[in-house]
């Protein structure tokens, strides 16, 4: 009897699993797993009200209008030359507009800009001054709007990939951060979102 008392009794660990299960179920219920993904954009700052708003003149050749109507139809093109197009054609049209591969006088101008490369050398790239202007009506659906935004983003990311491939011999995603910054500056994401048009009936 005396020897028994000195011995520390072993704690029964049989219910440890139940405790762990309880904790597990609590975390399953109280947490979410989905990481949020989305299309990141910068809104233009609002102009001060007392200041007279000067119309920012954009040359017609530098402007690419994309209009989405209430039934999700897309009209795109440069001012005066807009036409109905399908969503799947939008990406290539945007790319053609931004890149202006043949230096067409009707397509956007290019401005030679010098960039400092991470290895210390300079790199001159003709930066397109084209601006994509996206306009919607108040009854445009959000889904078509996001699809168009997505196509525009896709056009720009494909251009960036091509430029990165030519300059650094690799896709944008596998470049270093400095190289990526250079490419992002060389091909800026120029999407302007105008306020929706009010349709007069």
């Amino acid at each position, binding site marked *: 009897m005396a020897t028994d008392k000195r011995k520390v009794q072993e704690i029964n*660990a*049989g219910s*440890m*699993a139940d*405790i*762990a*299960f309880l*904790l*597990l179920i609590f*975390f*399953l219920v*109280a*947490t*979410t*797993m989905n*990481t*949020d*993904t*989305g*299309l*990141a*954009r*910068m*809104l*233009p*700052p*609002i102009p001060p009200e007392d200041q007279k708003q000067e119309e920012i003149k954009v040359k017609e050749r530098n402007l690419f209008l994309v209009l989405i109507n209430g039934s999700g139809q897309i009209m795109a093109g440069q001012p005066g030359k807009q036409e109905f197009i399908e*969503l*799947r054609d939008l990406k290539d049209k945007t790319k053609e507009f931004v890149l202006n591969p043949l230096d067409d006088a009707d397509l956007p101008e290019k401005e030679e800009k010098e960039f400092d490369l991470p290895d210390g050398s300079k790199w001159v790239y003709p930066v397109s001054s084209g601006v994509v202007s996206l306009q*919607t*009506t*108040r*009854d*445009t*659906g*959000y*889904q078509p*709007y*996001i*699809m168009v*935004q*997505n196509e525009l*983003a*896709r056009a720009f*990311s494909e251009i960036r990939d091509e430029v990165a491939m030519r300059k650094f011999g690799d896709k944008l995603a596998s470049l270093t951060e400095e190289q990526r910054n250079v490419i992002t500056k060389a091909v800026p994401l120029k999407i302007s*979102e105008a*306020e*929706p048009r009010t349709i007069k009936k």
Partner: protein
Amino acid sequence: MAVMKKKGNKSLPPISTASLPDVIFMILFFFMVSTTMRDQELLVRYKLPEATEVQKLEKKSLVSYIHIGQPSLAMQAKFGTAPRIQLNDSYKTTKDILDFVAAERDKLSEADRASMTICLKADGTTKMGIVTDVKQELRRANALKISYAASKSLGY
């Protein structure tokens, strides 16, 4: 000699469950690390639009959410089915966005305020009218970094 004799009467020895807690703890730690706390209850229903060019939202603590969509089923009897804006835990109008952004900005430290992001979670069937109103209010509140929430799809 080597052939074992079948002993029909003897039952199998019980499987040791001593390592069961360890296994469960492993799963528990996996969930603790890979998930985040659910922070607010949704009062609106939405099915996010799909896109291929989505980016991950970097820092959760810098992100504030604006939900837009139909009231959830339990709320529809009271609030109807017209799309609503949810800020924090209640339905709000576009006029409250200014205060909301100011409050959210106050929660962040001085250094982080510039990188505050507003995540717009809107239902795919919402009309652009309400979304544009929200965007205008955000411009007025000087919260210019936004993200249109969309789920990743592999293409159309």
